[in-house]
C-alpha cells in the first residue's frame, strides 16, 4: 500500500514507520482475537471454522511434512515455467505484431477477445480433451496468462516515446542501439505491469487446476484436506497460498527495482 510521502526529516519518518508497524501488528492481533472469539463463542459453528491455534499448529505440522514441500515446489515450479513460456512467446510475438500495421490490426480482435477469458473456464474442456496431466496444467497456465502479458507488451511498444525515437534518428543510432537503449528500457514499466498480472494469474490457474484436476500441488492439498474434512489443515494451506502470493508479488517488485529505478512510478514509491 502506498505510504504518504513525508518531507519533514529523518526522525519524523522513523517514528511514523514504527507507529505504522505497531498499528499493523495491532490490526493483525485484533483480527485473530475476533476470530478466536467467533469460534469460542460459537458465532460460527466449529465444524465450519477452526480455531486460530489449531490452524497455527496445522501450519507447523505442514512445514514438517515432506509431501507439503513437494506440493509447494510443484505449484511454484509450474507457475514459474508457465510464466517463462509466456514471456518467451510474448516478446517476439509482440514485436512481430507491432512491426506491421496489417498484422497489428488483424490480430487485434483475437487478442482483445482472449484477454478477458478466464483461464479457469478452459479447465473442463482441456480436461476432456487431454486428460489430467501436468502438461495440461502447464498449457492452462500459459493460455490463461499469455494474453494480458501480450497486451501490456503491445501497449508498451506503442508508447515508446516518439521524441526518443526521433532523437535516435537524429543521432543515427543503429537498429541494435535503438532496441537496446530506447525500446527495451521504455518497455520495462509496461513489461513489469504485465508481469505482475501474469504472475497473479499463473498462480491462480495453477492452484485451481490442481484443485479440480488433482495434479500435485497446493491446490490438490486443499482438495484433499477438504474431502477429508480436515478444516485446520485446509485453513493452513490457504495461509500458505497467501504467502506464496506475497512471495511472487515481492519477487516481481524486487526484480523491478534495479530495472525501473528511473521511472516516475518507482521514484514516487521510494519517495524521491
Amino acid at each position: 500500500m502506498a505510504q504518504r510521502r513525508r518531507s519533514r526529516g529523518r526522525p519524523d519518518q522513523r517514528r511514523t514507520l514504527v507507529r505504522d508497524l505497531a498499528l499493523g501488528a495491532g490490526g493483525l492481533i485484533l483480527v485473530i482475537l475476533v476470530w478466536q472469539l467467533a469460534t469460542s463463542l460459537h458465532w460460527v459453528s466449529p465444524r465450519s471454522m477452526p480455531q486460530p491455534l489449531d490452524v497455527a499448529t496445522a501450519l507447523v505440522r505442514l512445514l514438517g511434512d515432506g509431501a507439503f514441500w513437494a506440493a509447494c515446489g510443484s505449484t511454484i515450479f509450474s507457475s514459474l515455467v508457465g510464466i517463462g513460456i509466456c514471456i518467451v512467446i510474448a516478446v517476439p510475438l509482440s514485436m512481430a505484431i507491432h512491426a506491421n500495421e496489417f498484422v497489428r490490426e488483424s490480430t487485434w480482435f483475437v487478442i482483445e477477445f482472449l484477454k478477458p477469458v478466464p483461464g479457469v473456464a478452459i479447465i473442463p474442456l482441456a480436461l476432456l480433451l487431454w486428460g489430467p496431466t501436468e502438461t495440461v496444467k502447464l498449457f492452462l497456465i500459459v493460455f490463461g496468462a499469455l494474453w494480458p502479458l501480450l497486451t501490456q507488451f503491445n501497449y508498451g511498444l506503442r508508447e515508446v516515446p516518439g521524441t526518443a525515437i526521433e532523437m535516435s534518428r537524429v543521432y543515427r543510432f543503429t537498429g541494435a542501439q535503438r532496441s537496446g537503449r530506447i525500446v527495451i528500457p521504455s518497455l520495462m514499466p509496461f513489461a513489469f505491469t504485465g508481469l505482475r498480472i501474469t504472475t497473479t494469474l499463473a498462480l491462480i490457474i495453477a492452484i485451481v487446476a490442481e484443485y479440480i484436476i488433482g495434479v500435485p500441488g497446493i491446490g490438490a492439498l486443499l482438495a484433499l484436506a477438504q474431502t477429508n474434512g480436515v478444516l485446520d489443515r485446509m485453513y493452513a494451506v490457504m495461509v500458505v497460498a497467501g504467502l506464496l502470493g506475497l512471495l511472487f508479488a515481492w519477487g516481481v517488485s524486487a526484480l523491478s527495482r534495479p530495472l525501473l529505478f528511473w521511472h516516475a512510478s518507482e521514484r514516487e514509491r521510494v519517495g524521491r
Partner: protein
Amino acid sequence: MNGLLRSLRLLVLRAWLPIGIVVAWWLVSATSTSFYFPPLQEIFLEIWNQWILGPRLVSDLLPSLADFAIGFFTAILLGTVIGVLIGRSAIGQATVAPIINFFRALPSPALVPIMLALFGIGPNMNIAVIVVGAIWPTLLNTVDGVRALDTQVREVTRSYRLTRWQTVSQVVLPSAAPQIFAGYRISLQIAIILIVVSEMVGATHGLGYQVIESQQLFRVTQTWAGTIILGVLGYLLTSAFLLVERRVLAWHVRMRIATGAG
C-alpha cells in the same frame, strides 16, 4: 467521407481474421469424425437450442449472472465505502494494511474450500466467495486513491469550509476515481474467475456447474458449448465495464490528452 472510409477499412482489417478463423473451424470440423472435436455447427446449435432459446437460459445462465452481479456489486460497493473510511484515517490505514495486503496477494480461489465449509453448496456460497475474494483490489485502490488526495486540493476544500459529505462526494471520490476504477477492473476479473470456479466446485446449477458436469459425463459438444459461452460472457462483461469506465472518467481522459500528460 475520408473518415468513414478509414473506419470501414479498419473494420475490415480487424474483422477478417476472427471471421476467417470461425469459418475455417466450421468447415474443417464439419467433416470431422473425431469424438473430441465435433462440428462447430453442432456446437452452435447446442448453444442456440439449450442456452439462448432453451431451458438452460432460465435454469442456469440467468441465475449465474444474477449471483455474479450480486457478488460483484456488493464487493465493489463495500470496497469503496470501507476504502473511503479507511483512507481518510492515517491510523486506520496503517492498522489494516497487513490484512489487506495479505488478502490481496492470496490467490482468490483458495477461499472456495473455506467458503464451502462455511456456507455449503449453493448460491449463497457463490456470492459470498465473490464478495470476500473480489473486494480487496477495490479496497486497496480506494484507500490509495483517497490518501493520494492532493494537499492543495485538501486545503482548498478546507478553506472554503466544505462539509464532510461535500468533500467526500464532490472532491475525494472524483479525484480518486481513476484509481478506484482501476481497482474495479481487477475486482471484475477476480469475480469472473470466482463465479466460474465456485460453480464448478460448489453448486447444483449454473453455467460453471453445467460445464464441469458435461465434462464429467463426457458430453463433448456440451462442454465445448459451455466453454464458449463462458468465454463470450467474460468478454462481454469486461467490454461493458470498460464502456462504463470510459463514460465516468471522460473528464480524466480528455484532460490527459489536453495537458499531454503521460
